[in-house]
């Protein structure tokens, strides 16, 4: 799928084909995409544990359930538990010098090994690593960037995915053997959509002129209609929801799975 169509086709999928497992190679593609994401300090901010629902015994599955996640865990065949590894700063000094050696951080932009050792590490990075708020803030931003790549890789492979809050970390942590330095961020559900991939149409978004500005916050970034038309042709901008049959689609899916209507 072309990039623009991947971005435009992404939806939060909430009805999965519960019977169809996700191929392991597709998960690998998602993880590789996440691993290629932009990251400051070339640090590994995130960790993730993938769990296939059907590999869990009944007791473990029940332990994960709570009144707000039961249907989600039943319908999705694959769960990815995403974490920030709060120890991500460790090793940053060496990783940055590695980038200096690769000329990714060139002298043309002020970088040198001496700068990393003598100034950046002792005066910036080490203090940040001791500030819990800064650690969590940076970790959340950078992990989110990685997850975004994984989401788009899932969509590109015909998968559906939806991000959920962690609500049972006290149960999940011992079950998955999660280290104390990992902070839960998102539970990503993955599977093949039982609903149409369009999931009733593209979600409402405010025009970019409300969100982006040019030169000054008082000057909206006005869209070029020709570009908008091209993005419609290329699938980034798609027909808005709800499709006329969306309510019925949801009703029938709910009945198929015995879910509340």
């Amino acid at each position: 799928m072309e990039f623009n169509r991947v971005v435009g086709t992404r939806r939060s999928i909430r009805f999965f084909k519960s019977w169809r497992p996700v191929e392991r190679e597709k998960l690998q593609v998602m993880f590789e995409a996440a691993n290629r994401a932009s990251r400051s300090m070339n640090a590994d901010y995130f960790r993730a544990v993938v769990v296939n629902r059907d590999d869990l015994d009944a007791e473990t599955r029940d332990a994960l359930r709570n009144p707000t996640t039961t249907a989600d865990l039943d319908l999705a065949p694959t769960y990815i538990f995403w974490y920030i590894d709060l120890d991500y700063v460790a090793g940053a000094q060496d990783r940055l010098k590695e980038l200096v050696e690769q000329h990714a951080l060139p002298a043309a932009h002020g970088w040198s090994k001496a700068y990393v050792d003598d100034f950046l590490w002792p005066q910036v990075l080490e203090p940040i690593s001791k500030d819990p708020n800064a650690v969590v803030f940076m970790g959340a931003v950078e992990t989110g960037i990685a997850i975004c790549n994984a989401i788009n890789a899932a969509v590109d492979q015909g998968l559906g995915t939806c991000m959920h809050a962690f609500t049972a970390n006290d149960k999940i942590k011992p079950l998955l053997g999660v280290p104390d330095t990992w902070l839960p961020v998102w539970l990503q559900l993955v599977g093949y959509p039982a609903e149409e991939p369009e999931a009733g149409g593209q979600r409402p978004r405010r025009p970019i002129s409300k969100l982006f500005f040019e030169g000054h916050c008082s000057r909206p970034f006005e869209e070029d209609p020709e570009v908008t038309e091209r993005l419609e042709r290329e699938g980034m901008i798609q027909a808005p929801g709800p499709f006329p049959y969306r309510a019925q689609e949801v009703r029938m899916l709910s009945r198929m799975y015995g879910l509340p209507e």
Partner: protein
Amino acid sequence: MSAIHPSEVRTPTAGPAPDGTPTAGPAPDGRVDADLDAVAASPAARRWLERDGDGRVGAAHDGELRLLARFCASLGTTPDELVAQCTRATKSGDTAISAAGRRRTDQAISAFVVAEGAVGRDAIVLGNTLRSFLIHNGIFLQGPAAIE
């Protein structure tokens, strides 16, 4: 509130109610529970029954209403009290969902389904029909899906 008479409870062989709600227990003998009207008139029940905005509040939802009435009777409560038990007042005076209350109510639904004798998919649908009542009254809640 008095309990629903056992003869009002349907058996699995009775099939679904007119609105498709699965039923359990012996078939109805036509008697109308005196409490049913009170349940139907409660604001929480009406909010639930009017959720589609299509004016279907009568016979179309008969099975759902009877189920709710039986559940309320089993707990000795009313639909409005049921919703209230899932909420709590915050220090600032707002109303918030009570995690403990929601958990207790969810467990009560599961226990009720067992007591009704429903099994398999019918049990899931029965429980989720009651969860639907809470959901449409603002209580975020999920139940199991019938995937087997």
